[in-house]
């Protein structure tokens, strides 16, 4: 995987795995495609994991029947210390429609394999829990991401079975259903707790309530409009998802974004991170009753969204990123506002953290609450804040540098404890690092250009693009089509990996601590459900 030349990779894999490895190609240095002769990815997965410590970042399918007569599954691997992605492309036979499941060994891909089952009608053979996930149980047998399924299909009222949650038995054991409409102003999802008195024995999750056909929709709308769809994948990560999408197109078209555009993106990505982290710190505080800290945090967040609006015209940083750079430059007044607001914020943030640090009772509630052990975090493939608090040292900004991150040094905080307190610590550290990045980026002396025009995008280019959103690793994979349209767009929000972490972390905790544990991960439902 570290080898630079594709022929060397090919030779090595061929020697190890035999004729199953058909070819190795790379249009870009940091993205290598390995084509297999069949759907059995188990040997190569085993090889890459064992020999190179590779991590399987995401799995997805594509319907290539109209052109190549088959479905393909794609497995995106990355390796510590290498900026290269290795993507294994495995054809799924059209007659059996089966592929071997990796979920038993790699729980990280559990939901993603089931998503392939639901959306493409392919069967993950050997999956420990092959039930519906992305389309609910009451849906008819339709496969919306197949090419012969029209996006506009109007399905009749659903009459299928309702989801049956696994029962929990035992004296005094109760099951507590919560959602999809929750008590607070949050996104919809269903939680089914099995409790023995106060402690939680087991949590079952039901997501995809907000599934709105996003990936299919990407195949319909022209690229310049699709940027806005990318901004609506997960509202609080508008800029990260927007950037990931634009980057993908830019890579496919070999566009060179001017440095100023990259630096501005970096600043805005960090503003998004700061803004969401400070809100989460406040929300964690309020869930253990420290409402004054929450009031200060939400006041500070409001200052930051005002700043967002000043810099981009939108409180959620929307309508700013575009294919080729950013849409508008900044004048001196805006840069002054950015500097002053950041100075004000940095001082206020420190005071907020002092308030929390001094509160013994807050600390007492957060320490050893909702522990996710490092070995579990690694097995489940947890990324982002939740991963870093549990020893998973991943950060796309450092591992696969994009935008202008390679120009600035920053520290990636990693802890081993994995409790709510440390997930908060990761956020606190990251806010401070982000302030540093923005300050350095602001003093970068740059040329005036911040955008290049979008050319006609060449068809049939595949490329992967990754961004470290404030929640963690965001991956977009695209195949371009004719007339500035896409053939396929796969969206992997970090939340898709991370929900199982919540299931793990709540076990043995009291049900009253569920809100704060949930908040400490703060996963996106819409990003998961798409």
């Amino acid at each position, binding site marked *: 995987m570290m080898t630079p030349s594709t022929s060397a990779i090919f030779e090595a894999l061929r020697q190890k795995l035999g004729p199953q490895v058909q070819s190795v190609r790379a249009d870009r240095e940091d993205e290598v495609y390995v084509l297999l002769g069949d759907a059995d990815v188990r040997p190569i997965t085993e090889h890459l994991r064992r020999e190179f410590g590779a991590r399987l970042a995401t799995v997805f399918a594509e319907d290539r029947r109209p052109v190549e007569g088959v479905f393909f599954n794609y497995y995106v691997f990355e390796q510590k210390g290498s900026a290269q992605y290795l993507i294994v492309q495995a054809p799924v036979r059209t007659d059996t429609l089966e592929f071997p499941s990796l979920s038993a060994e790699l729980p990280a891909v559990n939901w993603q394999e089931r998503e392939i089952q639901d959306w493409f009608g392919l069967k993950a053979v050997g999956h420990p829990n092959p039930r519906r996930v992305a389309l609910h149980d009451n*849906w008819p047998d*339709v496969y*919306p991401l197949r090419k012969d*399924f029209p*996006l*506009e*299909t*109007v*399905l009749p009222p*659903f009459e299928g079975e309702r989801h049956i949650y696994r029962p929990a038995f035992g004296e005094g054991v109760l099951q507590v259903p919560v959602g*999809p*409409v929750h*008590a*607070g*102003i*949050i*996104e*919809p999802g269903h939680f089914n707790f099995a409790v023995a008195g106060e402690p939680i024995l087991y949590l079952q999750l039901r997501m*995809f*309530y*907000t*599934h*709105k*056909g996003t990936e299919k*929709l990407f195949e319909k*709308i022209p690229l310049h*409009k699709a940027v*806005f*769809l990318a901004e*609506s*994948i*997960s*509202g*609080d990560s*508008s800029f990260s998802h927007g950037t990931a999408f634009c980057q993908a197109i830019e890579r496919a078209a070999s566009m060179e974004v001017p440095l100023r555009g990259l630096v501005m993106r970096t600043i805005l990505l960090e503003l998004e991170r700061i803004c969401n982290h400070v809100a989460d710190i406040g929300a964690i505080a309020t869930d253990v009753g420290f409402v*004054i800290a929450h*009031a*200060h945090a*939400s*006041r500070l*967040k*409001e200052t930051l969204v*005002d700043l967002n*609006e*000043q*810099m*981009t*015209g939108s*409180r*959620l940083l*929307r*309508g700013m990123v575009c294919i080729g750079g950013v*849409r508008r430059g900044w004048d001196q007044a*805006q840069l002054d506002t950015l500097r002053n607001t950041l100075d004000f914020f940095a001082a206020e943030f420190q005071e907020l953290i*002092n*308030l929390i640090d*001094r509160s013994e009772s807050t600390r007492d509630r957060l320490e050893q609450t909702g522990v996710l052990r490092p070995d579990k975090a690694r097995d489940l493939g947890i990324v982002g804040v939740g991963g870093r608090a549990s020893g998973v040292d991943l950060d796309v900004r450092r591992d696969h540098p994009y935008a202008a991150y390679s120009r600035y040094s920053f520290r990636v905080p990693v802890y081993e404890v994995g409790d709510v307190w440390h997930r908060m610590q990761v956020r606190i550290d990251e806010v401070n690092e982000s302030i540093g990045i923005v300050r350095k980026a602001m003093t970068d002396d740059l040329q005036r250009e911040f955008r290049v025009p979008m050319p006609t995008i060449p068809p049939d280019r595949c490329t992967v693009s990754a961004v470290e959103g404030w929640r963690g690793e965001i991956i977009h994979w695209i195949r371009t089509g004719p007339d500035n349209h896409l053939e396929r767009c796969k969206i992997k929000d970090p939340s898709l990996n991370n929900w199982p972490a919540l299931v793990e972390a709540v076990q043995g905790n009291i049900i009253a601590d569920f809100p704060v544990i949930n908040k400490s991960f703060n996963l*996106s*439902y*819409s990003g998961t459900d798409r």
Partner: protein
Amino acid sequence: MLKILQKTISTGIVTANYPAEPAKISDRYRGRPSFDFDKWKDARPAAEVCPTGAISLSDKGDSRKVTVDYGLCVFCGLCAEASSDQAVRITREFELATPDRRNLVLTAEYTLNPDRTHRGLRKVDRASVNVETDVESLGKKARETIQKVLGRSLAIREVDAGSCNGCELEIVALNNPVHDIERFGIQFVASPRHADMLLVTGPVTRNMELALLKTHRAMAEPKVVVAVGACGISGGIFGENYASLGGVDKVLPVDVYIPGCPPRPQALLHGILLAVGRLAERLHNNRADFF
């Protein structure tokens, strides 16, 4: 404890006094795009770039009908950038909430030149957004209604029926110390049984349809429904597809529509206060039923 108190005192009052005073918003804010139809020489570039089809055209012979739908608008500003004739301008207006969906749509009819640019403006149907132009008195009225009619409190149940979470962020911001919606006696409640108002976001996914209906059914009469954001009004960028129904009024009767993507907190407040008026009317009309 002393430190906490000290911090509270040194911070002072941060709450904004909207709508009694105008909202303090950035001069960069992208609000309602306004259209100078006389000046508009060609609507095609704007319609071409609009990500949601909020600006659409239909040409018949030498005539063109241009439709602008603020219920679909995501306030991206591309239409203004694309229109070289300066006929489209981005304003800072945000108080766009209305009880009537039709108020969000405006149309203009043009005679066309051979090159398909506009020659003459035949007819304009203007949308009557800003029905309640006097926002200050709207606030006062709503406050009185809540005081007298609703026993000093209006309870809102929020339902995310498939939104991207953008609208939720702004609704949550209504509770922060700056916007502080509780100064009107308005509060968000956990149970629909306690709620007078259902605030719905998202294009209404097939997977949330039933939960939304059940939540509405669980509310006691009289109740009002408010559709929030481009998705809530029309499906927004998601529109109608196999998984999305394309707006709250496909499932429930909607009393007030609040445009935006997402609507800023002041826009939400404006829409909610407007809906309080509707609730008061309903209470008045149905009084006999209750006593």
